[in-house]
Structures are given as C-alpha cells and as structure tokens.
C-alpha cells in the first residue's frame, strides 16, 4: 500500500531517517572529509569529501538535517547556506581534475533563508553550482534520501542519474508551500495529487531513473550500494562531451512533452 504524502513527510523528517553520513560510513572506505568554502566558512549541513566506493575513488556531497537537536542546530536542519554551495563547487572542481565521479545524497528542506546567505550571494552560489554540475566532465549521480525542494536541492541534482528512496520527495517548493496556494483555491487534497513530487510520480515523468525500496530495512544499505553502483556503471563509458549532452538531453526531453 503506497504511503500518503503526510506519512512520507513524517518519515523523511524524522530524526531516525537514514542520513548521508550513515550511508558514507557504511559504503565508503577511507573517507576523507573536506571542510570550508575558502571564503566565508564551513557549512556543516554539507558533508563533502572523497573516499573509495567499490575500490574506486569518488567525491561525495551529503546534505544532512541532523539526528538530534544539537546537530539540527549545527546543520541548520539541512538548509544549505551560501558557504555550502561554494564548498560543493570547490569540491566538484577537484573531482573533475582527478576524474572522480560525484555522488550527492540529499535530505534538505531547500536553501537557507537568512540575512547572511542573502548578503553573501546565495543566488549566485546556487546558480554557479547548477551550472558547474551540468558542465561536469565526470559522471554525477544524486540519491534523494529524504526530501529536497527549490533551487537549493536542484543545485545538487543537475546530474546524469537521479535515484530516490521510495518515500523521498523532490519539488519546486515544500509541500506546505504548495498546500498554501491550494488552500486559497479551496482544495484540500494532498499537494502531491496536484503536482508530481513523490519518487513514484517523478519516475513516471522520466525525471527519476531509479527508486530504491525502503523495506526490508535490514538490507537497505545493500540496495543503495547496488543502485549507486549500477548508475555509475551505466555512465562509465561516456566521455566528457557525452556526459554533458546526456544531462542536457535528459532535462530537455522531459520539458518538451
């Protein structure tokens, strides 16, 4: 029985939700974390670094909400700040230099909403990351562990392949923001009944390339491992131009229907 939107939201926002840090510690060996954007600071919402995945070096970008109150505060509940986008940009440039694929894992509400991020050019930082991800000469893959909304999440998902856990969500705005518009129209059904935002719906329109079942929980890491490995395998034969073209065509095709 598929879960209702409300249940999905509760699941992905729960403190017990699988985090990018957990996935990294289970699937990656010799993980080496990279801090800071070299300009303003280090965004703790984004765990960035490199490590071995099946014996091959990869670059990792993991957005975490935090598992307890202290972590949530440190990590700004997953709302990536301007410093996080710039850290990511720096880290993917190095990935490109050393020809490592990039894996992003997300559970984030959207971009940070603060005076700090605005005054330090969050818009440009997001645009720069979107652009750089699209032009990347190495394969990139995104796994939505939880939710991801607005341009903030899109910056990490302008990629060759998108995977989602079965209860993950990806939308133009948070389900609450969509619901608020609907309420003005006296519509009270779930926001997802009016616009595609669930993994199943987004796979249906061709945005999402694979859905990973969340049960049985015992073997979830194995399925994530297999999913990421298969996605990277399918991209390994493509050269830099073919990778760029594949991204461009993936999104263009989806928008032409």
């Amino acid at each position, binding site marked *: 029985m598929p879960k209702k939107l409300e249940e999905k939201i509760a699941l992905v926002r729960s403190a017990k939700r699988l985090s990018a840090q957990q996935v990294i510690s289970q699937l990656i060996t010799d993980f080496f974390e990279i801090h800071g954007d070299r300009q303003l600071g280090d965004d703790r919402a984004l765990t960035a670094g490199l490590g071995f995945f099946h014996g091959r070096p990869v670059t990792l970008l993991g957005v975490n909400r935090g598992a307890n109150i202290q972590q949530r505060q440190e990590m700004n509940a997953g709302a990536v700040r301007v410093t996080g986008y710039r850290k990511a940009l720096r880290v993917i440039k190095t990935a490109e230099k050393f020809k490592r694929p990039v894996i992003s894992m997300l559970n984030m509400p959207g971009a940070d909403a603060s005076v700090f991020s605005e005054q*330090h050019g969050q818009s440009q930082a997001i645009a720069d990351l*979107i652009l750089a991800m699209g032009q990347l000469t190495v394969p990139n893959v995104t796994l939505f562990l939880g939710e991801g909304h607005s341009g903030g999440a899109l910056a990490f998902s302008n990629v060759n392949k998108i995977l989602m856990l079965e209860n993950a969500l990806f*939308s133009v705005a948070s389900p609450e923001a969509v619901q608020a518009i609907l309420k003005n129209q006296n519509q009270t059904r779930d926001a997802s009944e009016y616009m595609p935002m669930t993994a199943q719906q987004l796979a249906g329109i061709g945005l999402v390339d694979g859905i990973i079942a969340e049960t049985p929980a015992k073997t979830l890491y194995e399925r994530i491992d297999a999913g990421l490995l298969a996605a990277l395998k399918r991209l390994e034969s493509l050269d830099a131009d073919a990778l760029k073209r594949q991204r461009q065509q993936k999104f263009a095709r989806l928008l032409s229907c």
Partner: protein
Amino acid sequence: MSHMPKKNRWQVCKHCGKHVHELQWAPYFRCPFCHYLQRLSVPQRLKISVDPESWQPMVLPKQTSDSLQFPGYQDKLKDAKKISGESEAIEIGTAKIDNYPVALGIMDSHFMMGTLNTAVGAALKQIMQVSLTQKIPLILFVASGGARMQEGIYSLLQMNSILNEWQALLDAKTLVINVLTDPTMGGVSASFGFKADYVLAEDKAQIGFAGKQVIAQTSHEILPANFQTAEDLLTHGLVDQIVPRERLRSSLATLLKLHRGK
C-alpha cells in the same frame, strides 16, 4: 499600458501614497515625491530603452502549458493577460540601441509576477540562440518573483535546463548584459539572473533568493532596513552598478560601444 486605469490621469504612488499625474510619471515612471520607480510594462520599457521603430518582436516558441491542470491556474492566466496585455511573462525580439543591434528579453512583472515557467524558459532559450547565431549582444531585463508554482517541477527544471544551454552563450564571444529590475527573486535570481558579463540593477529594486517574510519567519532575524535592495547588493559586491532608469539607455549604449557592438 493596459495595467494603468483608463481615463484616470492620476495614479497613486504605491510607495508614498501621493497622487501623481500621468504627465509627471512618463516616461520613466519615477514618483516625483518619493523617487521610487514603478514597475514597467514591456511597451514602457521598450520606449525608454531602444531606438524608435527598431523593435522586432518574435513569436514565443512555446505556449503556456497547464499540463498539471493546477487548480485556479487558468483563471490566474486569464487575469494576467488582461492586466498585462501580454500572452506570457516575457517578450523577446531584436532591436537597436544607438544603432547597435541587440537581442532582447523583457520580463513583465504584471504577468503573474514575471514567474518562470516552461513558456518563459523556452523563450529565454530561444533568444539566447538568436544572440548566438546572429552574433549580437543579449540584453535581458529581468523582473520575476521566481519559479511559477503552478507548473510544479517543470518550472523548477527551467533553472537547470536554461543553465545547461547557457554555457554556450557564456563561452561565445558575445556580450551579455542583465538588467535586474524590481523584483528579481528566487529561481530566476538563482539561475540566469546573474549569469551575464555585466549585471546592472535599477535603484531600489528588490533582488534576492528567499522572500523577506520567509527569512523573517525561518531565521527569526530582524531584517536590515535596506535588505535585498539593489543598494544593499552593491555594498556587498553582488552587482556591477546601480543605474537609475533615466540613465539606463545611455549606460547600455556605452557598454555596447566599449565592446564595439559585440
């Protein structure tokens, strides 16, 4: 000028509340009392920006799509058309400024707050192609509240699909100038908004990513007085220059001249 009340020659300034006669508004639409700028329609923008009779509008490559059949969207579109006199939130075409040929995209905030959807995105990609193939500079007058919610993920994906093609424009030796006008927000500001060789802003324009209300609610911060204004962005090094509307045309002409029209 269809968003202006017909016959009524006096209009209230939205900022100071004073009644201003139409002769005092035209052609720059700056309030003589508080000096705030009114948001312009496309014809008003053209009139003060390009050589007379030089505007060659192009048909938008894609019509508005309501593929999600989002509740209330059709009514909103109908109202937007009536208020703005436009078929969508952008017009594209070619024109001349001081005899220099340019490709132009002009967004209209009177059409659903200039929001970015599939039709606007397609128009932007089209005018980028025109600039590339005809090797003429691209000038964008940006005015947008961000991604259009009613088209859901399809609006969001305009941001990256535009930028995936934008690189060709940035790589070409063609001049790109963005003029950020009130408002330049959200998914527009965080995609092509600042992706130009020169980023100019009109004075007092609101420019940013997240809305002020959202920021106040989320961060519980007291917002600085001039927060998200063009002036604040200039102070923080985020725009090249603030150009008052009265000098915009001559500033654009100077930039074109400095690049010999390329």
